[in-house]
């Protein structure tokens, strides 16, 4: 069995020590730190990105809250605007109605005055005509012209109960 040939032991051990030491130094000084650095950098990057993601999520939530608040404010503002406008419009309507009522009553009063005046005028005309007619009738019946004042007095007396 070649494994038991003692003469081969020394060169194998010597070369094993040389090669293994060389490999160990290469691993220790070069390969392992490089790989470890890379893995660490990647781990850091992943954690960074996770942190960033969490931050972004928070920001998005904040934005959403702000948006909702703004929406609510706008809605409330719109509601007050609508209420204000409604109140203003109903005020205006009431005002106009009152104005209209005032106008109408004024016009009614004016019309009534006019009617009264017309009635008075008519009454005056009737009185004058009646006096004339009565004077003419009396002149024809009596043959002499009556005193105009007396006739007017009598007419006025006759007309009184009918007048206002």
């Amino acid at each position: 069995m070649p494994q038991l040939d003692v003469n081969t032991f020394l060169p194998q051990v010597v070369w094993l020590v040389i090669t293994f030491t060389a490999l160990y130094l290469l691993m220790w000084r070069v390969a392992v730190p490089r790989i470890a650095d890379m893995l660490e950098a990647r781990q850091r990057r992943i954690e960074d990105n996770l942190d960033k993601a969490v931050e972004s999520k928070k920001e998005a939530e904040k934005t959403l809250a702000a948006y909702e608040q703004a929406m609510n404010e706008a809605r409330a503002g719109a509601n007050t605007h609508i209420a204000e406008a409604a109140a203003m419009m109903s005020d205006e309507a009431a005002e106009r109605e009152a104005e209209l009522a005032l106008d109408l009553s004024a016009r009614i009063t004016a019309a009534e005055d006019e009617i009264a005046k017309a009635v008075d005028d008519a009454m005056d005309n009737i009185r004058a005509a009646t006096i004339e007619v009565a004077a003419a009738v009396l002149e024809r019946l009596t043959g002499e012209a009556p005193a105009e004042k007396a006739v007017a007095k009598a007419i006025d007396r006759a007309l009184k109960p009918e007048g206002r």
Partner: protein
Amino acid sequence: MAADQSPLAQFEIKRWVPIEIGDVDVSLTNSSAFMVLTVVAVSVFLILGMRRPAMVPGRWQSMVELSYVFIASLVKDTVGTEGRTYFPFIFTVFMFVLVGNLFGMVPYGFTFTSHIIVTFTMAMVVFLGVTAIALKKHKMRFFTFFMPPGVPLIMAPLLVPIEIISYLSRPMSLSVRLFANMLAGHTLLKVFAGFVVALGLFGVFPLAFVVALTGLEIVIAFLQAFVFTILTCLYLNDALHLH
């Protein structure tokens, strides 16, 4: 059967370049050549694979990182965080044994891990190193390791020698396990490969067996490297934490 046809001929040490320094024979043999080849291959794989490290690794870089993370998690699980200091050594052991085993699977290759002197030297380095770490860390308290806690004192005369023998046999079991696995696997391959030609047309059966066995041997190459590494970790754990 000629001498070089023997199933054990593949383990023959050949002095390619005889070198002697003083009286010491340091000839470059086929064994040492494959050790050098292993060092070069591992270094190329790990260092060139990380030449331009990318955040998103390519295939090569992924394999490098995978082998690193594999051993790093093994050390973390068996030794704990104190194992970080010894990680480069354990990683070197794993890569050296693994690639050495795998080079043995290449036709005309030489398996230096099939030599007891190689595995025994490595096991002794591990054993002595681990013992030195334990002595440095625990001073005299290290020797309580041979007296498990909770054992009645009357058992000590029986138990302590057993513990000491089991401790001292660690380098033996560690080195023989790897050496014997490699030796047996490669011998078996060679024996069955010999049948292929001898049986003529019926040689397809041993051929199929050799193909299957080659697959198995590649698995064993990986497995034994892993076992060697995990045992190193366990011994280190014992040294750092005693019981």
